[in-house]
């Protein structure tokens, strides 16, 4: 095999018996072998698990059965989704030694669809970050330029797909953690409607915002993966009990007659080359028959502030359970409280501690109304603002991230600047809406730019249709050429 091949094609060939899943796997393991040292996309490459799955897929085909829509396709999994008997670390020391006794629903669905779980990808610790630099296990590097960050928090998943380690990957998106790294790594990344993909087995960061979604090299592959992982799950009470949009079948329906709103607020802080790419994408949509207009949703400006109250608030509660009592790291001390404190002091990194403290503060008696409750009111305003926009537009368009990938280390000491890199993605999380990032050529520095398509709840079908048109018009982006052993 030469070059990346679409997952759709690989699955079709494996299902037809024209190619063996074990060969597909070994090819990807070889690519990982060659490039992983300079990228560090994975916390763990699950070679034996994937080989076992590949053999099972081949056996099914040989026996005349159908292994499923992802037959023989390697999928990289962000390391915050539980895999039975396989370490699940959230890139944190606090989960040292913990082996989940169960599979996340998304893992079960991938396995049942014939996918090969090729590894657990690096991430910002507990998904808190926008560069994968807060990982306790080292930074992942951007395959397009190994001195740059891959974005985050799902930086490992984005880099794995960009580097050809796996055709597909799974990430989680709380404030942009799929879309922003997808944009920075030049791949497709999508955050579904809240409640569309089960969170069962996803280690929680901010439960009301977290949503699992696909990474792929193309819109069609992302659609394929989304169709597999979506759908109601009784194990997640927030899972929507209604038909999930099927997107693969509507991909080619075009945008003729649609209204696309270019969201002014998302352009405000974006770099000129990024704004230029968005304009080109809008022009391409107009050329394909869409009506394009500029639209303003002023409430969106409040998103970042609201997010940094709501997400840490929930996180402070979600991360309380890492107390050294039941699993993971325990640092012994003279009594229980001292043990809790010692364990958490050693086990959590600085960004996680910062957000736990922030979240504890905003939920405290006396401050809750001024901060957390106020943020919830803002959240409602944002939802209302979007609702008004969607009475006029089918989808909204904007950049995914304000800039292309920034240098490793550039923002680690300045959390506020780091937080700003999620400014374009956060509003969709607060609203619970779907959004997709599509690579749209290089920026002035030659690094990938992502264009984001936003839609109302359960508009995935429309979103993918628009994304497919954007993708077809995208300027050429050079494939990453990974140089080995690049210094940080």
């Amino acid at each position, binding site marked *: 095999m030469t070059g990346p091949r679409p997952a759709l094609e690989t699955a079709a060939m494996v299902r037809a018996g024209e190619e063996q899943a074990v060969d597909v796997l070994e090819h990807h393991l070889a690519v990982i072998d060659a490039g992983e040292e300079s990228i560090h996309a994975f916390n763990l490459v699950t070679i034996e698990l994937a080989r076992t799955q590949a053999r099972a897929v081949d056996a099914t085909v040989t026996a005349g059965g159908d292994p499923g829509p992802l037959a023989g396709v390697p999928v990289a999994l962000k390391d*915050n*989704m*539980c895999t039975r008997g396989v370490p*699940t670390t*959230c890139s944190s020391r606090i*989960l040292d030694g*913990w082996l*989940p*006794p*169960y599979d*996340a629903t998304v893992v079960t669905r991938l396995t049942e669809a014939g996918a090969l779980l090729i590894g657990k990808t690096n991430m910002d610790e507990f998904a808190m970050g926008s560069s994968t630099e807060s990982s306790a296990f080292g930074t992942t590097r951007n395959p397009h330029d190994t001195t740059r960050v891959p974005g985050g928090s799902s930086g490992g998943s984005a880099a794995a797909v960009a580097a050809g380690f796996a055709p597909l990957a799974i990430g989680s998106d709380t404030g942009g953690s799929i879309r922003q790294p997808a944009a920075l790594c030049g791949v497709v990344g999508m955050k579904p409607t809240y409640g569309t993909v089960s*969170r*069962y*087995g*996803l*280690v*929680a960061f*901010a*439960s*009301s915002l977290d949503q699992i979604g696909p990474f792929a090299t193309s819109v069609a592959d992302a659609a394929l993966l989304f169709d597999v992982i979506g759908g109601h799950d*009784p*194990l*997640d*009470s*927030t899972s929507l009990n209604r038909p999930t949009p099927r997107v693969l079948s509507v991909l080619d329906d075009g945008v003729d007659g649609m209204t696309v709103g270019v969201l002014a607020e998302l352009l405000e802080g974006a770099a000129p080359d990024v704004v230029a790419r968005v304009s080109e994408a809008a022009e391409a949509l107009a050329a394909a028959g869409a009506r394009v207009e500029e639209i303003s949703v002023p409430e969106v400006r409040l998103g970042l502030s609201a997010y940094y109250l709501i997400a840490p*608030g*929930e996180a*402070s*509660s979600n991360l*309380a*359970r890492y*107390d050294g*009592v*039941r*699993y993971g790291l325990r640092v012994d001390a003279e*009594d*229980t*409280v001292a043990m*809790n404190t010692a364990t958490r002091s050693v086990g959590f990194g600085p960004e996680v501690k910062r957000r736990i403290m922030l979240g*504890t503060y905003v*939920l*405290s*008696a006396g401050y*809750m109304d001024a901060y*957390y409750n106020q943020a919830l009111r803002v959240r409602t305003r944002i939802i209302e603002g979007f609702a008004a926009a969607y009475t006029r537009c089918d989808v909204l368009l904007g950049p995914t991230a304000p800039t292309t990938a920034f240098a490793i280390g550039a923002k680690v000491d300045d959390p506020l600047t780091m937080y700003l890199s999620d400014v374009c993605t956060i509003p969709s999380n607060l609203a619970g809406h779907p959004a997709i990032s599509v690579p749209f050529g290089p920026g002035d520095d030659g690094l990938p730019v992502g264009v984001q398509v936003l839609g109302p709840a359960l508009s995935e079908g429309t979103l993918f249709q628009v994304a497919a048109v954007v993708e077809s018009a995208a300027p050429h982006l050079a494939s990453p050429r990974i140089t080995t052993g690049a210094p940080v």
Partner: protein
Amino acid sequence: MVIGLEVHCELKTATKLFCGCPNMFGDEPNTNVCPNCLGLPGSLPVLNQRAVELAMAIGTALHCDIRASTFHRKNYFYPDQAKDYQISQYDEPLNVDGHLDLPDGFRVGIERAHMEEDTGKTTHAGTSGRIHGADYSLVDYNRSGVPLVEIVSRPDMRTADQARAYVTELRAILVASGASDGKMEEGSMRVDANVSVRPGPDDPFGTRCEIKNLNSVRSLGRAIEYEAERQIALLESGERVVQQTRHWDEGAGRTQALRSKEDAYDYRYFLEPDLVPLVPDAEWIRAVADTLGMMPAERRARLTELLDEGGGATRSQLLQVATVVELRLDDLVVEAVAAGVPSALALARTANEAATDADAARALDPKSYVELLTLEANGSLSATQAKAVLAELFVLGGGDPAAIARDKGFEAMSEDSLAATVGEAVAAHPDEWARFCEGDDKLAGFFTMLVMKATRGQANGKAVAAELRRLKG
């Protein structure tokens, strides 16, 4: 004295509140656990529908409004709290604004009855028995996630007796509604008391203290009385009552400060994002109400009415009514009366004899029980015989009372042979018979005794009396 009570009640569901683990506390430690009730990363709660129905049944029985409700997280660190937060209903509970009427008619307001999950159970090894100073601690998470309903009364009670009566009646309601087994001593029902004192009934409420660790109705009464006296003594000596949580020491017979309001936890309540609002519709509320059986007050009223038809209840009969209802044997009385047994007899037999083994009595086919009482009522069996047959029914777990009576040789003597025996007794004591005929009614007992002696107790006293009256003419 002003008293408000908070009662935690474990719901009698097959599984836990948010997962499918068996609700079986007391099994081998940490066997009824799963990722959810151990608080493993990535686990999510799924609300148990049966638990909601039982909570709604409690709300219905306590005349509450049942309404749309939400769950919150109550955040605090403790080893037996698997997630280091408890999922509990906070400002939007399922049941609000109800009441409970004590048997004497006193009405206690119910502020709310909300759902929450239980914690695991920690055992501290070492001399202190508390977490501080323990050598090590062991946690059993079998109880983690067991469904609870917390019933919060209004501060309406004014005496320890009312508090005792409230808990007794509430327990009966919880058992009758099928929501709980009501076992205080096993911890499936736990009571905290808020106590304050004030100079007079029209004065504002004083500062309250909350008393924990009340494991019986008796402890509750003692603790309240002790605490009220402690507070009165403080006020009379010019000091003030400090709002605090106090621990009842049953052995020492006193309360001790646990923590004061100043160092109370900040629980940082916020809406549980892993659950959706619980919105029971009218149809569901009605369906739960329809399956709810009669409550104790209604059951007592039903029996009292039966006695009223028979001429009104005496004081001791009212106690019998309470006993029978408490033991859930009142259906037996009602059925017996419906079959023609006099209400006084049915009540007495049930409150005195059946009550000695209430479990067996409840397990009995009511038809056997009614038949037995009918045999006694129509004179076929003496009281003594009836009691013996009942004991045998309990041993056998049921059966035909007439057949048991026959086997025991209790077959009521035929009228002929009874008449013959009575005749013999009369003939043997002509003087006494003459005095009896002249109106000395006391001698009826003398002849009855002779007949009983001759028949070794098998004769029916009433039948003997009837025969004597017949002979006397």
